[in-house]
């Protein structure tokens, strides 16, 4: 099941040229670009691990693309996303966030039903990949 989170997630995966163009757009708006990765793609998991520091005072997408490449080389089977943070007063938040790398196989989520007091039902999601293996081995082993 293809995970759809963040901007552009219903489109086919962006090519590197398209990612570069998006980063260019972020930089034009003076947003700081950051790269994050995870292998726990639960929709409520907002805290992904940071790949280095957010890139403030960047002028050109080449620098961010270089970091993205390094991140992909290290974590080819992780989800990687690019966040663009707007520091302008009144916004001070992430303005754009999109996935730029995903595992080759995405098993998706199981819906869990739990029966509570008085036969009430509680529903929750559970990732097959997260249940299957500990952190770092969930989507096939990374090399190195």
């Amino acid at each position, binding site marked *: 099941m293809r995970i759809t989170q963040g901007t552009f997630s219903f489109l086919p995966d962006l090519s590197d040229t398209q990612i570069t163009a998006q980063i260019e757009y972020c930089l034009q708006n003076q947003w700081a670009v950051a790269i994050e990765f995870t292998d726990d793609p639960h929709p409520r998991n907002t805290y992904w691990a940071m790949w*280095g520091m957010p*890139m403030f*005072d*960047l*002028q*050109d*997408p*080449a*620098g*961010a693309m*270089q*970091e993205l490449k390094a991140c992909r080389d290290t974590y080819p089977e992780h989800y990687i996303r690019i966040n663009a943070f707007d520091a302008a007063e009144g916004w001070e938040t992430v303005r754009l966030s999109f996935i730029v790398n995903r595992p080759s196989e995405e098993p998706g989520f199981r819906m869990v039903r739990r029966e509570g007091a008085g036969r009430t039902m509680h529903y929750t999601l559970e990732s097959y990949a997260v249940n299957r293996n500990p952190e770092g081995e969930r989507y096939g082993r990374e090399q190195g």
Partner: protein
Amino acid sequence: MTVEQTVKPGAGDTIDLAAEYREAGVADVLERLDNELIGLQPVKQRVREIAALLLVDRVRSRFDLATEPPSLHMCFTGNPGTGKTTLAMRMAEILKRLGYVRKGHVVAVTRDDLVGQYIGHTAPKTREVLKRAMGGVLFIDEAYYLYRPENEKDYGQEAIELLLQVMENQRDDLVVVLAGYADRMERFFTSNPGMKSRIAHHVEFPDYSDGELTQIADLMLSQWNYHFDPGGSRAFAEYLQRRRTSPHFANARSVRNALDRMRLRQALRLFDAAAPVAREDLQTITEADVRASRHFRDSSEQDPEN
């Protein structure tokens, strides 16, 4: 490299180089270079050559004549205050107009910005600077300090290696300009032959003559809305001769500092006179303001920067 390829010219077609030159907007950068930078004839000549090469290269690629993207890394050598940083800014502008760098900003750094203080600190620091410079020009002032032969554990070597790697593999993304004194730069290159071979353009900045320094002083003063009175300019010419022979002479930078001090003395003179001042008084630097400099005193215990 961005070349707008709307219509491909055929083998028999011609392209007007002059029109191309005008379109790229390089002409007015070069013209400003001529007007705003005094002297430096050999440097201007080199800049013109480089600009011509890049322009012709661009036209060649339109005819599908395969060219290696030219190596643009440069080395500026010369004494302090000869305009190296200023030229780096102009060069960035020219490269941007011709489409060889995307953004045309200049990131000026020295050893401290690249080299870390402990093991593992250097690489991220250098990489950070390189990322910031991408799309523009990385200007490394006094680059020879990166290499410290007397200390084999020095982290400078690590920065040099990272730099070399990017200079080789990401030529489209950034242009590196090294700057410094000629002799020390030469020693730096002998111990880092890899660096020398990756730098295509070596530009030498000559010292300014007294006449050129006078012109520079006049230009600076007119930019600040000041001018010498006739006695003042005679005294200043004499000042230059004395200043040149004293230690720590830094060409245009010394001129600038001297003018700053003359402005101070002029302000104090006007203030102490306690008389009403006219517009003209506020603009004029007189002989007395110049002659108050320590370089006109004959004592041997002079402060070098005065």
